[in-house]
C-alpha cells in the first residue's frame, strides 16, 4: 500500500502543480498550491521524514499559503482583468519550459553535463571530507533502535539544547508584542 502511494503521490503533486499554473482564478491557484504542499508533505511522511512533512504542513500550508489566500481575497481584482492577465501569462510557458528543462536534466543526470547531477555538487565526497559523514557507515545503528525523526529531534532539543528553545520562545514573544505595539491605535479604541 505504502509503495503504491509513494508511486501515486508524485503524479498527483505534478498534476496539482500543472493545474496551479493553468488556473485563471488566483484563489483557485492558491488552493492548488496548498494541495501541492499537502501531497508533498504526505509523500515525505511516507518516506519517514516526519519532521520535514510536519513543518511543510505547519509553515507552508498553515501560515504562508493561508496568508496568500487572505491577501488575494482582500485584493479587489476584477475577474475580467484576471483572465486577460492569465492569457498573457500563458505566453511565458515556453520560456518556463526552456528554463525548467535543463534544471530537470541536471537534476537527473544527463550525458550532456558529463554526468554531473545537481546532487553531486552538494556531495560531500567532492568537497574532500566524505569520511566524516558517510551515510553508509551509520546504518547499523538502525538495527538496535529506530526512532522517528520527531522523536530524536525532540529528545535532542529538550535535553541538550533547551537554551535555544528558550531563546526562540523569547523571540516569538517579541514577535507577538512587536506588531501589537506597531499597530495598536490607542487614540481611537480606548478600553477604559
Amino acid at each position: 500500500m505504502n509503495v503504491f502511494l509513494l508511486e501515486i503521490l508524485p503524479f498527483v503533486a505534478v498534476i496539482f502543480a500543472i493545474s496551479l499554473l493553468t488556473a485563471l482564478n488566483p484563489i483557485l491557484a492558491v488552493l492548488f498550491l496548498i494541495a501541492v504542499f499537502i501531497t508533498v508533505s504526505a509523500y515525505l511522511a511516507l518516506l519517514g521524514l516526519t519532521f520535514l512533512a510536519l513543518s511543510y504542513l505547519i509553515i507552508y500550508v498553515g501560515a504562508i499559503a493561508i496568508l496568500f489566500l487572505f491577501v488575494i481575497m482582500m485584493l479587489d481584482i476584477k475577474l475580467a482583468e484576471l483572465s486577460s492577465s492569465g492569457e498573457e501569462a500563458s505566453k511565458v510557458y515556453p520560456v518556463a519550459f526552456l528554463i525548467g528543462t535543463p534544471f530537470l536534466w541536471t537534476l537527473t543526470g544527463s550525458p550532456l553535463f558529463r554526468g554531473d547531477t545537481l546532487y553531486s555538487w552538494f556531495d560531500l565526497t567532492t568537497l574532500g571530507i566524505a569520511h566524516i559523514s558517510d551515510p553508509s557507515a551509520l546504518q547499523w545503528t538502525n538495527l538496535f533502535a529506530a526512532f522517528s525523526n520527531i522523536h530524536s529531534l525532540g529528545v535532542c532539543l529538550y535535553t541538550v539544547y533547551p537554551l535555544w528553545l528558550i531563546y526562540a520562545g523569547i523571540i516569538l514573544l517579541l514577535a507577538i508584542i512587536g506588531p501589537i505595539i506597531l499597530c495598536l491605535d490607542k487614540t481611537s479604541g480606548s478600553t477604559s
Partner: protein
Amino acid sequence: MLLLSILLFSAVVPLTSVHMSTHVFNRLAILVLLYSSVLAWNMLYLEPIGVGLGIYGGLSHVTLLSQAFDTFILACASIILLLGSGVIPVLGQHGSWFEPIAKGRVAEYPLIILFTTLGMSSLVSSSDLVTLFLSIELQSLALYILATIYRDSEAATSAGLKYFIVGALSSSLILLGSCLLYGLTGVSSFEGVYLLCSMAVANSGIHLALVIIGIALLFKVAAAPFHNWAPDVYDGVPTIVTTWLAIMPKVAILAFLGEFQGFTHLGGVYETAYPIWPNILLVSALLSLVIGGLLGLAQYRIKRLLAYSTISHMGFILLALAIHTQEGIEAYLFYLVQYVLTSINIFFVLLAFGDHPYGSAWDTPSSAGFSLFDNAELPKNSPIRYISHISRNSNIQSNPALALTFAITLFSMAGTPPLLGFFAKLMVLYAAGHAGFFFLVGVAIMASVISAAYYLRVIRVIFFDTPQFTDTPTCRVRPNGNHSMVIGTITLLIILFIANPLPILNCLHLLALSLFYW
C-alpha cells in the same frame, strides 16, 4: 534578571499604561538595567570566570571579557534610557502638541529596549553558531521595532523598513555561513571552530563559510563596503532611536567579534590557518576609513554626518581587531569604550539642542517633507536635522556651555591631542605600526585628518556662522537635569582623562591579557 523584568513588563505595560505615567516605566527599566549591570559586575570577581566557563551545556560561555562587556553594555543602556526619561516630562508639559506620542508608544519603548539588551548580553556570551544567530535575531528584531516605533513619520517608517530588509539579508547570510560550516564539518560550537583553526590544513569550504559569516557581521556594524544603509537609517529615525541604533548593537557585535576571534584563535595574520578572517577585517577597515573620511565631507544633515563619522570610527576599531596582538586588543577595547562615551555625549547634546520649550526630540509628522529652506515649520518643531540648524538654536549666546561641550566632544572625535579620542587613535595606530601595517597607519592618519575637517565645519557653524533664521526669536536652550548631568560627566571624563588615565588603561590591559594568557 533581564528576562524576568521583560516578562513582568510585558504583563504590566498593557494592563496599567492607562493609569500609570509612562516615565515610571522608563525609570523602572533604568533601574533594572543598572541592577543587572551590577550583577554582571559582581560576577567579574569569581575565580573560574577567568578561565572561561561554558554554561547551558556549552551553548554559551562566560569569560572575563564577556562579563566586562556585559557590565559595560548594560550600564550604557541605562544611560541612554535616561534620554527617554528626559523627554517624557517635556511631553507632559506641552501635552496638546505631543498628544499622539504621549498616548502612544512611549510606554513600550523601555520594554523593547529590554528585549534588545537581552539579545545583546546573550550575544556577547554566545559560544555556538546557533546561539549567535538566535541572539542576533532577538537583538535586531527588537531594533526593527524600535526603528519604526514612531510610525506616524514617513521617514522613520521607510528607514525602519530599510533597516529591516538589510538586517534580514545579513541574518540570512549568517545562517548560510553557519549551514556551510556545519554541513562541511559537523561542527557548530566555537570550540569546534577553534579545533578547525588550529589544524594545519585549510579547507576552501570553511574559508567560504568564514567569509560569509564575517561579511554578515560587518553588515550589522555598517563597516565600509556594507555601510550604505546606515546614513539613511540613522537620518530617518527619531534621534532618540538613532542614539540607540548607532551605539548599542555595534558595541555588542564588535564585542562578540573580539571575543569570537580571541576564543577561536581566528585572529592574527600570521598564526592562524585561516588568514582570510583578519584579511576581511583589514580590507573593511581600509574602506571604512576612506569612505567614512571622504563622504562625510559632503553631508549637510547632521545625523548623516554622524553616521559617516561612525563608519570611520568602525575603520579604526576593525583595524585594531584585525591586528590581534595584545596591544591591538587593548587599543580595540579602549577605542570601543571611548567611541561609546563620545557618541552618547554627542547625541545627548544634539537632543538637548532640540529641547527648547516648544520642541522635542521626536520628529513631527511633517518632517518627512521637510526641505532645507522651508522654515515655516521651524519655530515649533526643532529636532535638529541640518547642520545649519545648530547655529540657529545654539549660537553661543543661547547656551554657551552646551555649545562648548559639543565642540569639545567633536574635537575628541576628531582626535585633537589632550582629549580622550586622541589617545584612542594613538593606541590603535601605535599597535598597527608595531605589527607592521604601515600602509594602513598612513591611510588611517590621512582619513582622520580629512574627517577632522568636517568636525571642524560643524564647530565653525556653531561658533562663527551668523544664524540663518534670524526671524525666529531665539529662546534659551535648557536641557533638563538628567541630561545635563550625563553631558557634564562625560565631557569631564573626555577632558580629564589625561590627568589620570591609569584606572581605565589598567582595567583594559588586564582584560586584554586575560584574552591571551589564561
